[in-house]
C-alpha cells in the first residue's frame, strides 16, 4: 500500500493511512477520546495535540483506559 505507515497500536502491527493524526486513529478505531490516555513512542500526549500529531512509520501507539481492578 502506498502512502501508508506501519505502526503498532497496543502492541499489534497495523498499516495505517499516511498523514493520519492520532485523533483520526482513535475515531476510526471507534474509541472515545475522553476516556483514554494515549502514549506515542513512550510520550504521553495531551488531548489538545491529538489532531496535530501525525502518525509516522514505526510509531508505537498505546491507547489506555480504565478497567475493573482492585489491588493488583
Amino acid at each position, binding site marked *: 500500500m502506498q502512502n501508508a505507515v506501519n505502526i503498532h*497500536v*497496543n*502492541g*499489534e502491527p497495523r498499516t495505517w493511512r499516511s498523514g493520519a493524526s492520532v485523533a483520526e486513529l482513535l475515531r476510526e*478505531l*471507534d*474509541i*472515545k477520546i*475522553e*476516556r*483514554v*490516555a*494515549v*502514549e506515542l513512542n513512550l510520550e*504521553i*500526549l*495531551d*488531548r489538545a495535540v491529538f489532531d496535530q500529531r501525525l502518525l509516522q512509520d514505526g510509531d508505537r501507539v*498505546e*491507547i*489506555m*483506559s*480504565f*478497567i*475493573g*481492578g*482492585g*489491588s*493488583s
Partner: protein
Amino acid sequence: MADDRLIIAGREFKSRLWVGTGKYKDFVETQKAIEASGADVVTVAVRRVNITDRSKDNLLDYIDPKKYTILPNTAGCYTVEDAVRYSRLARAAGVSDLVKLEVLGDEKTLFPDTAGLIEAAKILIKEGFIVLPYTNDDPIVAKKLVDIGCPAVMPLAAPIGSGLGIRNPYNLKIIMETVKVPIIVDAGVGTASDAALAMEYGADAVLMNTAIAGAQDPIAMAEAMRHAVHAGRLAYKAGRIPRKLYATASSPIEGML
C-alpha cells in the same frame, strides 16, 4: 455521625468503605455491588483498550465519574518506572490527580516493594499527584511515606485477595499512633467482621475488592461490608470497655434479699 467525614488532601469523602472493581461477573454486577456497598470511592486499573473488539462496554459507562471518586491504581506494576508510567497515563485519561500507588515486590505474595514505593511516590508527588500508597503493615515505612508528602497511607491487612483478615493488628495500631494522616486498610479482608475490626482499631477507612466480588453473593456481601464498616466506626468512636479477666456484675447488689 453526620459530621464524621473523611478528609484527605482537602477532599471530603462520605463513605469509609472504598471498593475495587475487579473480578465481578459483569459490569451490571459491579454496578449493583458498588451501589450496595455505599462506597463513594472506587478504584480502577489502567490497561490497554481492546482495539480489535470494540463491542465491549466501558467500565465508566456503569460507574459514573460524576457520582463516584474514581481512584486509579497501578495494579500489576513491579517497578518504579512502570508505576510512574501508569500513574501518568491514569492522569492523562482524565479522571484526577489521585493515584493508589502500588509497586509490587513479588508475584506470589503481591507484597509491596516498599523501597520502590517510596521512590515512585517521591517522583509522583513532585509532579503534583495525590499519592495514596498501598504499603506493608510497617510503621517505619508508613512514616517515611507521610514525611515525603503522602496525605494518607494504605497498609495491608493481609496479602491481596487472601481473605486472611488482619494479620498484624498491633502493627496497624502502631501505624495509627505514628502517623497523623488517615489510614486506609487496603487488602486482605475476608468477611464483615474483618472490616469491622479494622474500623474498631481506628482505621479511617477500608478498601476491599475480592472479599465482595469473590463472595457467593457479592451484592449481599457488599451490603454486609457497608454495615460492618459503619458499625466498626461507631464502636471506635463510642469507645469500647477495657478487657478484664474477671466478671463485673451488671446488676446492683443493693436491694437483694
